[in-house]
């Protein structure tokens, strides 16, 4: 039986693009930004540099929030006061990630978690990483539980820059 012509296409190879058999155009955009932190995040970062976690409080909604903001998004009034909260909290949820942000495969997985910070309203906290929780999935899943108590591990004071990375990670804390 005669093979029908063009029944299957010819697959494109990476090489075809490289040698210009298939033409494309390329462009790299210089999309660089410097975001103004403003009042709330500016002061929050100042606090992190000093090893403190600062929150703001709305008395009407009885709500203490971190990262702080100058207005309450519930009642839409300015926040009433700044308070320092503890650098401990509980794991609200976590995941075990085998890829870095740019999809580079990781030997040792990262453990992103939402940490509810002690002193803030229930459910309020921030995204960070867990550390000292094991090097592989089995170890991590044995140690990390939703609701587990954690404590911040800070960079040495002279290395802090006023950024969320001034906290290296949160590690398990004895109950």
């Amino acid at each position: 039986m005669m093979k029908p012509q063009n029944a299957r296409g010819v697959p494109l190879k990476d090489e075809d693009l490289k040698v210009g058999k298939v033409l494309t155009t390329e462009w790299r955009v210089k999309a660089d930004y410097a975001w103004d932190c403003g009042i709330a995040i500016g002061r929050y970062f100042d606090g992190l540099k000093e090893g403190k976690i600062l929150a703001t409080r709305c008395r009407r909604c009885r709500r203490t929030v971190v990262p702080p903001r100058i207005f309450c998004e519930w009642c839409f009034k300015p926040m009433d006061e700044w308070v320092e909260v503890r650098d401990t909290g509980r794991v609200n949820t976590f995941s075990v990630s085998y890829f870095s942000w740019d999809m580079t495969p990781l030997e040792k997985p990262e453990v992103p978690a939402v940490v509810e910070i002690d002193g803030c309203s229930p459910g309020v906290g921030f995204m960070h990483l867990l550390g000292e929780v094991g090097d592989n999935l089995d170890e991590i899943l044995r140690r990390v539980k939703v609701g587990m108590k954690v404590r911040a591990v800070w960079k040495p004071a002279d290395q802090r820059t006023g950024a969320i990375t001034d906290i290296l990670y949160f590690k398990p804390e004895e109950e």
Partner: protein
Amino acid sequence: MRERVAIVGVGYTSFRPLSPEVSFREMVFEAACRAYADAGLEPDRVGTFVAVSEDYLEGTSIFDEYVPDQLGAVLKPVQTICQDGITAIASAYLQLATGLFEVALVEGHAKASNVLYPAHIEAFAMDPVFVRPLGLNPRFVAGLEMRSFLAQTGNTEEQVALVVAKNKANALKNPLAAYPALVTAEDVLASRPVATPVKELDIAPFADGAVVLILARESVARTLKSQPVYIRGIGWMQDTPNLDQRDWSQASYAELAGRMAYRQAGIRDPKEEICFAEVDDTFSYKELQHIEALGLARCGEAGVLLSEGYFLPDGPLPVNVSGGSLGNGYLYDASGLRSVLEVVLQLRGQAGERQLPDVRVGLAQSWRGIPTASGGVIILSNE
């Protein structure tokens, strides 16, 4: 008959070259608080929110997700559109006109100072296959258009320079403006060539700031303490993105958006029926081009009328009494909202030192900037 829609609240920050003291959220919060106070409304009365933003200007992809908190819009219907401010008003207007909602909020802001290489972002808006590889500074588009406009209409470079002098002088009476100044047409003509015939002073410099407007159906507007300003007509239009296929001398998008708005407003002779206008002047020649496209002057006459004082605050048809973008600063897609803000303030009699006497009908027009040929037109009235 369809129920009318009014602008019932305006809120704004001042416009300034830099704003490191506030985040974009804090800046928008200020404008939103003012708008709610001005309208005499609590955020829970607003049924729908429309914001304008462009991810590449915010530095965050899917920026629309970051809109609600600072507007009081958490867990409310929110829509962010990637167009200019007047098109956002059109969207809110339609949502009210359908009867689905009673009160809508429209927000636009610029943190232009946070974009470190704005020319690179503008270049990224060019066609990636045909135009970007030529490696040109995007402002060449304005150079091409200004030359064609002058050649086709007979307006002159000297007349275009007068636009800058007028608008920057108008801005001296606007406490919100970032770039008020006394400059002469000679100063403009002598400024550094950027993409000839466009020179440095012909270009509106960037500014940071936020504008929030609250809209309501007439039945609600009548119950509020603020003086309603009614939307009599609104139009928006988009021309081809291809630089080699558009009409370089005419602003067809403005002409057609204007016709759409005039038809709704029942306006037959804009020159006679529009009391004053805020038109886009991102580049000085655009003001004259837009004036002609909107029928506020005949083709080729805008420059002569300008030099005779026709568009000055005390002339028969004041244009950009606020100072325009040349005087206030260019707020990207919020620029159209800033123009609408001025029309509302004038129609309410709240424009302070620059208040125009006896104004009843005002027009605001927007252009979306290089390399676009799109924009909107809105006709507002205090009656």
